[in-house]
C-alpha cells in the first residue's frame, strides 16, 4: 500500500515536470527514432551522439542503441557521430513520426587511439554527468596488461578517483569507498566477486564485452544499492551480419569467441570462453609436491538476441565462471553465475521500455581430504533473483524522463560445514539461511534549459525488508549476545526505507568549457564481511538487519571541464566531498567466517572522503592516452576502534597518479606504456614488544598510523598487427608486454620477524609479489 503511495507520488513529480514544457510547444510534435548500429557487425552503439543541426541539440543512444527525438513539423539535418566511425548526416522533411535505423561504418584507420572515449567531440564538457568514465573495449586492449590479460577492472583502476586495494587485486576503492561499495553489473546482473585467482585477473573476458562505464559520484537514480560507484559492463550482442571468431593464446590463458547471425539482421549469438592454465606448468615446478596440484579458472559468456519487430527485441545472456585450486590435501573452488533475460519494448516511438529478469549467484566450496577424521567440506552461497522495469520517455530534444523500478530477492547461505569421513570428527555446522527483499523505484528528468544550462534531477526510493525464517541475535551495548529471536517463514520482521535524491547541473561557458555540479545520496543494504584489504573469495555478504543499519552516503561534486585544440585535448578538475554514516568496520581480532553472531563483530561509525581529481585526456593525431592525478583523504571514526579516534581508512592514498599512453610507431606497430604512483597504504606497525615463551610479541601503534612505502610501477607493451592480406578475413597480432618494467619491489606486506640466529633481534621484512613479468599473447580474428 505504502509502495503504491510512493509510486504515485513519484509519478506526480514526473507529470508536473512535464507540463510546462508541453505548454511551450503548442505545435504538433513528431518523433524521429531508431537504432544506431555498426555496419559491419550489427552491434548497437551505446551512447552514440544523435543531434539536430538546426537546433544545436540532440540526444545519445541508450544502452540498447535506441534514440528518439521529439520534433515539430519542419526540415532538419540529423547527424550521428560515434568515435571511430564515419559521421552520418541526413536531411529530414518531417511531417509524421519517422523511424530511422542507421548503420555507421568504422573509419578506415584503426581504432588504436582513444582510450577514454569522448563520444560527441565535446561530450565530456556538455554532458550532464560528473565523475563518469566510459571505456571502450577496443581501447582497453592497448593498455599494457599483467600477464598479457587485458582487463576491464585493471583499466578502471587507472582512472583518477579510483585506488587499487592491494597489488594484484581486482578490488578497487572509488573516492575512498570500500571495495564492496561498488555495484558491478554484467548485463544488469550483480557480479558479487569480480576476481579470479585471488584478484590477479577479473571475471570479465574482454572478447565478450562491448563497453564498460564507471560512475564515481553521480550514480543515476535508476541504480542503487551501493554507496560509492556503479560499474556497468555490457556484453556484445553478437555479430548479426557475418559469422566471426576472435581468440587469443596467451602465456597463461587462451580465449575463443564465436559470434554470428542465426537469422541475418534479426537473430544473433555470441559464445565466448576463456581458460587459464597455470597448472599446466606445475609439472615443471621444482617442488615435487606442486606437481599434482590444480590451479585454473574459466569463464563462459553466452548471449542470444532476437529482433521480433521494430517495437520488440529480446536478449538472453549468461555468464558462468569458476576458479579451481586443488592439491592432495585440500581444495577450493568458487565462482559467479548470472543470467539475464531482457525484453525491449516500444510503447510508442517516444516511450522506450526494458523489462529484465535477472538471476545472479556466487558460491564457494572448500574442503580437505574426504576420508580423514578431520576431513570436511564447507560451502557458502548467495543468490539473487530480480525483476526490473525501466522506461524512458523522450519528451523533446532537451527533455528526457526516465522512471522505473526493481525488486530483488536475496537468499544468503552464509556457510555450512560438515565432516566428510566415515569416522568424522565434525558435526554438521550450519549457519541459518537469510532472506531479504530489496526494492527501488525511481524517476528522473533531464532538461536542457536555454542554450547553456542543463539540469538533471531524480529521486530514488529504496526499501529493504528482512524476511523470515530467521534467527536474530540480540546484543547488549558491548556487543555481547544476550539472547536470540526466531522469526517464522515469510515474517517481514524488519524493514528500512529511504529517499535518495540525485541532482546534476551543467552550465556551458562557451563551446569548450563547462562547470558542473552534482549531489547524490546513496544507500547500501548489503555488504561484505571483509576485514583484510584485498579480501579472499571466502568473504561473505551480509545484509542490513535489526542490528545493522543501512549505510548512507551524501556526496557533492563540482567540476570544471575544458577542451583544447578542437576537443583533442580534454581536461577536467573535479572536487568531491562525501560523508558516510553507519560505516561498518570490525572489532579487533574479529571472526567473520562461520560465525552465527557475525553482527556482534561489527563496529559502527562515520567516515568522510574528500579529494580533487585532475585528468588530461589526449586524443592527438598519434599520441593518445591520459594523465590523472588525485589528491584525497579518507578517514573513519568508529566507536570501539582506535580508542574512538579518527583513523585513515584502509584505502586512503593521498597521492595517486596514473599515466596511460599509446603511440603508433608505424602503421602496424603500437607502443603502450603506463606508469602508476600512489602513496603507500596506511598500516599499523608495532612500537613496543614483549616476550612470552621466547616469542617476541608486538604492541601496536594507533590504527593505521604508519604507511607502506610508496607504490610505483611502469608497464610497457608493444603490439604488432600483421598487415591484413587482400581478400583474407584473417587478422592477427602479437602483443608483448612487460609488467613492472623496472622491477621495483613494491611492498605487498610488511612483517616483523625474529632473527633466526638471535631471537632477541627483530627486523622488518618486506614481501613483494612481482619483479618484472614479461608475457606474450597472440590474438586473431576472422
Amino acid at each position: 500500500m505504502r509502495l503504491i503511495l510512493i509510486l504515485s507520488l513519484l509519478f506526480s513529480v514526473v507529470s508536473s515536470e512535464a507540463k510546462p514544457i508541453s505548454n511551450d510547444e503548442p505545435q504538433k510534435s513528431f518523433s524521429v527514432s531508431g537504432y544506431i548500429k555498426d555496419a559491419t557487425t550489427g552491434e548497437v552503439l551505446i551512447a552514440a551522439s544523435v543531434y539536430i543541426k538546426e537546433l544545436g541539440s540532440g540526444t545519445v543512444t541508450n544502452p540498447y542503441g535506441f534514440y528518439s527525438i521529439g520534433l515539430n513539423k519542419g526540415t532538419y539535418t540529423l547527424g550521428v557521430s560515434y568515435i571511430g566511425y564515419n559521421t552520418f548526416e541526413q536531411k529530414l522533411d518531417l511531417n509524421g513520426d519517422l523511424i530511422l535505423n542507421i548503420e555507421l561504418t568504422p573509419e578506415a584507420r584503426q581504432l588504436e587511439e582513444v582510450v577514454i572515449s569522448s563520444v560527441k567531440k565535446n561530450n565530456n564538457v556538455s554532458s550532464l554527468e560528473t565523475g563518469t568514465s566510459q571505456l571502450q573495449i577496443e581501447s582497453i586492449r592497448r593498455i599494457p596488461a599483467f600477464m598479457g590479460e587485458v582487463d576491464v577492472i585493471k583499466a578502471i583502476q587507472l582512472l583518477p578517483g579510483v585506488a587499487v586495494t592491494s597489488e594484484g587485486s581486482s578490488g578497487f576503492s572509488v573516492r575512498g569507498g570500500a571495495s564492496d561499495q561498488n555495484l558491478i553489473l554484467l548485463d544488469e546482473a550483480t557480479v558479487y566477486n569480480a576476481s579470479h585467482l585471488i584478484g590477479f585477473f577479473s571475471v570479465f573476458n574482454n572478447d565478450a564485452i562491448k563497453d564498460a562505464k564507471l560512475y564515481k559520484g553521480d550514480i543515476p537514480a535508476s541504480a542503487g544499492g551501493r554507496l560509492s560507484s556503479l560499474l556497468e559492463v555490457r556484453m556484445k550482442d553478437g555479430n548479426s551480419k557475418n559469422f566471426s571468431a576472435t581468440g587469443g593464446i596467451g602465456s597463461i590463458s587462451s580465449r575463443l569467441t564465436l559470434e554470428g547471425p542465426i537469422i541475418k539482421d534479426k537473430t544473433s549469438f555470441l559464445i565466448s570462453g576463456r581458460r587459464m592454465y597455470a597448472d599446466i606448468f606445475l609439472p615443471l615446478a621444482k617442488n615435487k609436491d606442486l606437481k599434482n596440484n590444480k590451479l585454473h579458472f574459466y569463464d563462459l559468456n553466452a548471449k542470444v538476441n532476437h529482433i521480433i519487430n521494430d517495437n520488440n527485441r529480446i536478449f538472453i545472456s549468461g555468464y558462468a565462471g569458476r576458479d579451481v585450486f586443488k592439491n592432495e590435501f585440500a581444495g577450493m573452488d568458487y565462482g559467479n553465475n548470472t543470467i539475464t533475460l531482457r525484453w525491449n519494448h516500444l510503447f510508442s516511438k517516444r516511450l522506450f521500455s526494458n523489462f529484465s529478469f535477472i538471476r545472479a549467484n556466487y558460491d564457494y566450496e572448500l574442503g580437505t581430504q574426504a576420508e580423514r577424521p578431520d576431513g570436511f567440506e564447507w560451502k557458502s552461497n548467495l543468490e539473487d533473483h530480480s525483476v526490473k522495469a525501466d522506461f524512458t520517455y523522450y519528451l523533446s530534444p532537451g527533455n528526457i524522463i526516465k522512471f522505473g523500478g526493481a525488486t530483488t530477492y536475496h537468499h544468503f547461505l552464509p556457510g555450512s560445514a560438515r565432516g566428510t569421513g566415515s569416522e568424522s570428527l565434525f558435526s554438521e555446522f550450519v549457519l541459518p539461511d537469510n532472506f531479504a527483499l530489496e526494492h527501488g523505484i525511481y524517476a528522473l528528468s533531464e532538461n536542457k534549459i536555454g542554450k547553456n544550462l542543463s539540469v538533471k534531477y531524480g529521486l530514488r526510493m529504496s526499501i529493504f525488508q528482512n524476511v523470515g525464517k530467521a534467527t536474530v541475535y540480540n546484543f547488549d551495548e558491548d556487543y555481547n549476545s544476550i539472547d536470540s529471536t526466531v522469526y517464522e517463514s515469510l515474517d517481514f520482521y524488519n524493514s528500512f526505507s529511504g529517499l535518495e535524491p540525485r541532482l546534476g547541473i551543467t552550465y556551458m561557458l562557451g563551446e569548450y568549457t563547462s562547470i558542473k555540479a552534482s549531489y547524490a545520496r546513496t544507500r547500501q543494504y548489503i555488504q561484505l564481511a571483509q576485514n583484510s584489504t584485498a579480501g579472499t573469495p571466502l568473504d561473505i555478504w551480509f545484509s542490513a538487519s535489526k542490528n545493522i543499519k543501512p549505510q548512507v552516503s551524501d556526496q557533492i561534486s563540482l567540476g570544471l571541464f575544458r577542451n583544447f585544440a578542437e576537443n583533442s585535448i580534454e581536461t577536467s578538475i573535479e572536487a568531491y566531498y562525501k560523508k558516510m554514516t553507519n560505516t561498518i568496520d570490525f572489532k579487533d581480532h574479529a571472526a567473520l567466517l562461520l560465525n552465527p553472531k557475525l553482527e556482534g563483530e561489527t563496529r559502527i561509525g562515520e567516515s568522510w572522503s574528500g579529494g580533487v581529481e585532475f585528468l588530461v585526456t589526449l586524443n592527438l593525431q598519434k599520441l593518445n592516452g591520459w594523465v590523472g592525478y588525485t589528491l584525497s583523504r579518507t578517514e573513519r571514526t568508529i566507536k570501539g576502534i582506535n580508542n574512538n579516534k579518527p583513523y585513515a581508512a584502509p584505502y586512503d592514498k593521498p597521492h595517486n597518479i596514473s599515466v596511460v599512453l599509446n603511440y603508433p610507431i608505424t602503421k602496424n606497430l603500437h607502443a603502450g606504456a603506463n606508469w602508476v604512483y600512489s602513496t603507500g597504504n596506511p598500516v599499523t606497525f608495532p612500537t613496543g614488544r614483549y616476550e612470552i615463551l621466547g616469542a617476541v610479541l608486538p604492541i601496536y601503534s594507533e590504527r593505521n598510523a604508519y604507511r607502506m612505502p610508496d607504490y610505483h610501477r611502469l608497464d610497457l607493451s608493444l603490439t604488432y598487427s600483421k598487415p591484413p592480406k587482400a581478400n583474407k578475413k584473417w587478422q592477427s597480432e602479437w602483443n608483448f608486454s612487460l609488467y613492472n618494467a623496472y622491477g621495483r619491489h613494491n611492498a605487498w606486506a610488511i612483517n616483523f620477524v625474529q632473527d633466526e640466529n638471535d631471537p632477541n633481534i627483530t627486523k622488518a621484512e618486506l614481501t613483494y609479489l612481482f619483479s618484472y613479468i614479461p608475457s606474450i599473447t597472440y590474438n586473431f580474428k576472422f
Partner: protein
Amino acid sequence: MKKTFLYLGFLLLIVFPIMQSCTEPIEIELDNSYARLIVYGEISTDTTVHKIRLNRSADYFYNLPAEGVSGAIIRISDGVQEITLSESVTEPGSYQTESNYYGVPGRSYSLTINNVDINRDGTSETYSASSELPFMAAPDSIKLNYANYPFFTGSEILLFAKDPAETEDFYAFKVVKNGIQQTDSLPEIFVQNDLLFNGNYTNGVSVQFLDDDKPGEKVSPGDTIVFEMYGITAGYYNFIVQAQTELFGSNPLFSGPPANITTNLTNGALGFFAGVNIRRAGVIAPESN
C-alpha cells in the same frame, strides 16, 4: 578454525611459487613506546613448582633479552587458600610456588601483583588477573602416524578422546618425547575449540607433530611419546590464537588489521595468567614407525 587457515595456507602455497613472491629486509623507523608490565604464567593441575614470569616491555627494536621485574609481591588465591610466591634467586623476574602446589579444576584463581613500579614514578602499582581452572576428561589414547605432507615430514599424534556435549570446550595440545617437552615455543602449541565437533568422539584426528627436520624431534623406535592435553579457558584460547596470528605475519588477503593481543591482566599490563587442566596419554614408538 585455525586448522582451516592452515589448509588455506597450503592453497596459498600453490599459488605463490608461481607468482614469485619474495621477501627482503626493509628499514623501518618506529616510534618509541612506554613500558608496560608483562605477566605470564599457568596454574596447572600438576603437582609441581608453578612459575609466574614478570617482564618489562620495550621498544620494538630493543633487540635484547626482556628485562625481568624483581622485587614484586605476588599472591595467588583459589578461594580456599592464598599463597605468596617467592622470587627465584637464579632467574630474576621469575616467581615460584612451592613444589607441592597444584591447581584444582573448578576453582577460580586470582593473581595479585604488588610492589612494582613500571613507569618509575616512585609509586608502586597493583595489577591483578583471574582465571578459572576448567574441568576436562582425560584422553583415551593416542597413536603415532608417520606422515608426509607438503612442507612437513614426521610423526603426527592421532588423538582418541571424547568431547563433552554439555560444555563449550577449549584445548591446547603439546607433546613430550623421552621426558623432554617438544612443544617448547608459542607457535608450536596447537589450540582448538569444539565449535565444529561439540560432543563428538575424535576418532584419531591429528593434533600434534614431531617434525623430522627439527633437532631432537625425529621419533625412533622405543621412544616414549607423551601427549599432553590441556583444558583451557576461552580467554586463554583467544590469547594463544591471537599471539600465533601475530607471529604468523600478515598479508592483504587473510589478515585483518593488526591489533594488540588480549589480556586478562588489569591496569595496562599485558600477557596472560591462566588456569589449565593437564591430562596425558602415552605410547611407545613401535618398530615399524
